[in-house]
C-alpha cells in the first residue's frame, strides 16, 4: 500500500508540470493583461512602462522559466490585480469552495441513494419513471438557470432564504441544492444501473431464497457492491463540482475559488489563474487517489499491485 501511494504521488509530478505548462501557455496566448490594467486613455509609453515593470516584455520561454523556478519554491507570483502573492489569496478561498462542494455532495447523496436504489428495486414502476425522468431533468437544468430560479422562488417570492453571500447555514442551502442537483442526477442514474446489474446476480437470488428480508438483500448485499462505480464517478465529479462551483459561486456571490477564478480570467490575472488551476488540479488528483484507496475498503479482492 505504501509503495502504491509513493508511486501515485510520484506520478503527480509530471502531471502537474504538464498542467503548469498548458495553463501558462493558455494564459500567455490569451492576451496582454497590461491592456486591462490601465485606463482607456493610457499612452503607449505608460503601457510599455508597466509591461516592463511586470516583466511581461520578456520572451515566453524566459517568463515560463521564471514562473517554473518560482513554482518549485512554492511561489506562484504576484497577482496583478490585488498586488499581493497569488497562492495565499487562492488558499484563502479554498475553505468556502470545499464547504460548498461538500454540502452539494451531501445534497446529491441524500437525493441519489434512495432514488437510485428504489428505482432499481421497482423497475418500470411509477417510482422508476419518476427517478429516471427526474434525473434527466436534473442533469438538463443548467446551474446558472437553476440558481436564479431558486433565488426567485425561495428568496424573492417566498422570502424564506437569503439571496446570496456566505454567513449562516441558511446561506448554504440554495447554492448547495443548485450545485448538488446535477450531481444527484448523475449519481441516481449510475446507482440505478449498477443496482440493476447486481440485483440480477446469482448471489442475490441465493440471498433472497434464504428468506432474508428484502431491505437486507438490497442494502447489505446489493447496494454495497454497486458502490464501486459510484465512488469512481463521485471522485470524477470533483472536477464537475469545481466547474459547477465557478457558475454557482458567481450566481450566489459565494466567495470561493470559483468566483476568484472567473474574475481572474476576466482580468487576465495570470498568477491567480495559474495558482487556482494548480490547486484545483491537486484537489482532483487527490480525490482520485482517495477513490483508489476506497476501492480496497469496499472490495478486499482489489490489489494495489
Amino acid at each position, binding site marked *: 500500500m505504501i509503495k502504491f501511494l509513493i508511486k501515485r504521488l510520484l506520478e503527480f509530478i509530471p502531471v502537474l508540470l504538464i498542467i503548469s505548462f498548458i495553463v501558462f501557455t493558455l494564459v500567455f496566448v490569451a492576451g496582454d493583461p497590461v*491592456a486591462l490594467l490601465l485606463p482607456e486613455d493610457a499612452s503607449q509609453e505608460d503601457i510599455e512602462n508597466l509591461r516592463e515593470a511586470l516583466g511581461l516584455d520578456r520572451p515566453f520561454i524566459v517568463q515560463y522559466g521564471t514562473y517554473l523556478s518560482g513554482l518549485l519554491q512554492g511561489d506562484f507570483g504576484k497577482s496583478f490585480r490585488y498586488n499581493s502573492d497569488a497562492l495565499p489569496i487562492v488558499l484563502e*478561498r479554498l475553505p468556502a469552495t470545499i464547504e460548498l462542494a461538500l454540502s452539494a455532495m451531501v445534497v446529491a447523496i441524500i437525493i441519489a441513494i434512495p432514488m437510485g436504489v428504489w428505482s432499481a428495486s421497482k423497475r418500470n414502476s411509477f417510482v422508476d419513471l419518476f427517478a429516471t425522468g427526474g434525473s434527466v431533468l436534473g442533469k438538463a437544468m443548467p446551474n446558472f438557470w437553476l440558481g436564479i430560479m431558486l433565488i426567485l422562488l425561495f428568496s424573492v417570492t417566498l422570502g424564506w432564504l437569503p439571496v446570496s453571500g456566505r454567513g449562516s447555514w441558511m446561506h448554504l442551502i440554495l447554492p448547495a441544492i443548485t450545485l448538488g442537483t446535477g450531481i444527484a442526477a448523475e449519481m441516481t442514474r449510475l446507482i440505478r444501473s449498477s443496482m440493476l446489474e447486481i440485483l440480477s446476480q446469482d448471489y442475490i437470488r441465493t440471498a433472497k431464497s434464504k428468506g432474508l428480508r428484502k431491505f437486507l438483500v438490497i442494502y447489505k448485499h446489493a447496494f454495497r457492491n454497486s458502490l464501486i462505480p459510484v465512488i469512481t464517478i463521485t471522485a470524477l465529479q470533483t472536477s464537475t463540482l469545481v466547474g459547477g462551483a465557478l457558475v454557482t459561486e458567481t450566481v450566489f456571490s459565494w466567495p470561493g475559488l470559483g468566483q476568484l477564478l472567473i*474574475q481572474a480570467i476576466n482580468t487576465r490575472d495570470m498568477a491567480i489563474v495559474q495558482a487556482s488551476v494548480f490547486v484545483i488540479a491537486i484537489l482532483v488528483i487527490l480525490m482520485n487517489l482517495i477513490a483508489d484507496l476506497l476501492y480496497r475498503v469496499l472490495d478486499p479482492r482489489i490489489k494495489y499491485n
Partner: protein
Amino acid sequence: MKKIICFLPFMFVLIVLAACTNNSSTENEQPAETEEGTKETGTTSNGESKELTIAIGSDMLGFDIHNHNNTSTESIHQNMFDYLFKRDENNELQPWLAESYEILDDMTIEIKLKQGVKFHNGDEFKAEDVKFTLERVATDETLKENPNYKQIKEVKIIDDYTVQIITHAPEPSIIHRLSRLGSGMLPKKYIEENGWDYFLENPIGTGPYKYVEWVRDDRIVMEPFEDYFQGKVGEWDKVTFRIIPEDSTRVSELLTGGVDIATNIPPADWERVESNEGTSLKQEVSNRTLFIVLRATEGYPTADVRVRQAIDYAIDDGTLTEFALQGAGIPTLSMVGPGNFGHEASLYDTYNYDLEKAKQLLEEAGYSDGFEMTLHAPKGRYLQDAEVAELIVGMLAQVGITVNLEFMEWSNFVELRNANENKDAYLLGLGNSMYDGAYSVDWYRSTRMEGHTDYKNEEIDQLLADSQVNMDPATREIQIQEIQKIVAEDVPHINLYLEKINTGVSDRINFTPTSDEMLYVPTITRN
C-alpha cells in the same frame, strides 16, 4: 408505505425549507429594547437599522491607493481616505484637507493644511504625510497611478502645516489631480513604522469611516471614525460593501431588502426595481462619453471631412439613447461633459441628424453610391454597447454606407487599438476622473494620434499647446471650449452620448448617485 419512503428526500428538503422560514423571520425581528428604552447598537430609538449595505459588482483591488485606477475601488476608498481638495455638489473644487492655496509661480503651488486633522490611529495629519504620499506616486513608475502624478517634481515642507508642490512644467490641472484617485493622504509615520504590508492589511486614513474587515470577493466593512475632522458621521454605525458580481442576484438582494443600494442595474431589471414596493431606480448622467473614432489616414473614405460629417448626420443619437439605452443616455456633440472644467454647454444635449444632408455630403465627397467600412466594437463593456453598434450599422446603411461590424473581446480590442491596427472606425467610451476637459480634448492632439487615426488640425494643436501651460483658468477654459467647437465641425470622432449611471435604491434611504460614480457614505441618509 414504500411510496411514502421514496418521497423522503423531497420531504426532507421541504422540512429544511420550512425550518428556514421560521429562522428567517426570527433573524428579521428587531433587537430587544435595553433598560434605557433604547435599542441595541445598530438601530435607532424607533427601531430603524443603522447598518448600511451597498451591493457592488466587483471587489475592491486592495488598499494601495496609488496602484489601481479602478473607479469601483475608489468609490469605497473615498470613505477612508481624504484628498487635499474635493469637488462639491456643483462639481466645484474646494479645499478639503487643504485650508487654502496660492499659486506662487507657474510651477509652484503652496498649500496650507488644516490643523487638527487626525488619522484613524490618532496621529495628526501633517505636511510630511503630503510629501510622503505625493512623492511616492510621482516617482515610482511601477505604480498604476504614476502617469497621472509624474508631473510633480517635488513636495517641499515649509512647516508642519504648509507644503509647496513643485512641478516639472506648468501644470494647470494640479488642483484637479489633487482631488482624485491616487491622491488620498497616507500616514507616513504609521507606514514607515509598520511597513507597507502591514498597512495593506490594516489600512488607516483620515476619512469619515475606518476599516473593520475585508473578506475578499465577499464584503468590506467600515465603521464611523469618532475623531473625523468634520465631526463624526453618525448616520450609520456600520457600512458594508457587498460584492455581488451577478446582476440578477444583486437586483434580487435589493428587492428582498438584503442591500440598500445596488449599483449597475441592467436595463432588463429597471422595471422590476421601479415597480417593486420599497425600491426605486435612480439615474444620473455619468462622466463617460461614448463616441466613434474615425480614421483620417489618407486612403480611407473617412479622411474626407465631408464623409465624417455625413456619418455624423446619418446617426440618430436620439434613437440610440431612447431605444437602445431606454433613456439612459444624453446625446452630445462633445466629449467634455457637464461638471468638467471647459464644458461647452451649447454642444450638450443636442445632436446632428439629417439623412438628406448626409447623402448630399457623401455625394459631394464622391461617394454617392456609398462605400464599405469596418466598425470595431466591444461587447458588454458599456451599457447596451452591442445594441448601439447594431443600430448604427442600420442607420449608416440608410445613406449607402455598408458597415462590417466586428465585435471584440475587450482585451483584444485594447490590443488592436494599442497596435494601431484599428480600421475605419471603432466604438469607445471614455470617462474623465480629472473632471478637466483638457484630458478629453487631448485625444485630438496630432502627435498623439499619429499612426492611429492620423487626424491633424493645426488650430487644435496650437490651442492644446497653449492650454497645456496656461495657468489662467479663465482663458484656459475658453481654449478648451474652442477646441470642442472645432471638433464639432471637423468631426474626428462622432460623439454620441453620455451614459447614465443606473442605481437601485431602497426607499429606506436617501441617495442620489453622482456622475463620478462614487459611493460617499456621508451623503447617504436614512429616510
